[in-house]
């Protein structure tokens, strides 16, 4: 199992478009990938789950992956957050 903390850096937070990007990226991997915020742990392969997390600007999330390609999976998701989902 691989785990990393990320911070939401884009002003608008994790709305529909960033969620879609996360799901698209997560689906490229075989590992089970989860996002955790407060007491909510949701599957990163489901759009509605990610949106209902309600992750706003500057909130901290845990990216957790478990499986064969967990290392690359976590890094790929973290990279999306680092690039602010190509937003401001």
């Amino acid at each position, binding site marked *: 199992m691989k785990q990393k903390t990320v911070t939401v850096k884009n002003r608008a937070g994790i709305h*529909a478009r960033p969620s879609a990007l996360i799901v698209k990226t997560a689906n490229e991997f075989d590992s089970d990938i989860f996002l955790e915020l407060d007491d*909510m742990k949701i599957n990163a392969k*489901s*759009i*509605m789950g990610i949106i209902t997390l*309600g992750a706003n600007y500057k909130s901290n999330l845990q990216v957790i992956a478990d499986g064969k390609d967990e290392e690359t999976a976590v890094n790929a998701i973290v990279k999306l957050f680092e690039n602010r989902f190509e937003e401001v």
Partner: protein
Amino acid sequence: MMNDFTVLDLLNLDLKDHNSLNLKCLEGRKGLTRIITDSEINRPGLTLSGFFEEFAYHRIQLFGKGEVAYLKMLEETKKMENIKKMFSYKLACCIFTNSALPGEKFLKLAKTSECPILQTDLSSSDFELRIIRALSDIFAPRKTIHGVLVEVFGIGVLITGRSGVGKSESALELIERGHRLIADDSVVLRSVNGNFLMGSGTNEMLGHHMEIRGLGIINISHLFGVGSIRDKKQIQLIIDLETWNPESGYDRIGTDELTKKMLDVEVPLIKMPVKAGRNIPILIEVAAMNERLKKLGYYSAQEFDNNVLKWLENKNARNLYSNNTDIF
């Protein structure tokens, strides 16, 4: 519990009809951020009379008619020490029932100690019932899981399974057939009194939307009407969808009863293999109806097995007659 539950959250609770608490804040607005840690409440009669041992100050303090009359007496006779001492503790908040108003000195003390004073027009016993119900709901153990919760023929069915196995699609067809959606994708489970599981959506503002591959996000209540949605429902059956595995032996008779334990509550579980040509929504409908039959005390599979046993027994008896001529 997502965050700490504050007095402000208590005031903001959106409860309706017979659950509504009718609270308003009289004084001590600065203290509205105080955290309520306990689902129980305290009647501060002993405290007011000067007995401070085992004083449950962190609980909500409820002032009914008796306490208010005693307060009035204390103020009139200018015996304010006990009240002052009470406010030196960090009380969660004080609530006055029956629209009662505390005296001015009391309010002044509350203001300086930043203790929120709330008022309700309900009677003490009614308010007590409602707040205990509301708080035990809030402090109930909870967990968010991945799945879809639908109500099928009055049975709360939780559909689980891996991403992409067809949970949302099955739920959509069930809704199309007149059943109701409670939550799609992430379902919040709460263990009510440790007896049963209550399921609801994670967020009321975003509730009752579904994501269907190829369609995107759709609004169920707008598409199918308010009759097709529900806010919460007890979870009475879990259907676990899994891709067909020829190696796994599926239950062919239905006499094995599987259960799944979540938050220490056992819920009946059905493992449902998914394969082209199997109409999952219809199977879920039948499973729900079968569950209702079981609740009424009729177990299809067991009853069938009993009939088979009886029939075999009859045949044995017949054979006995026809083969054994000595019997007469």
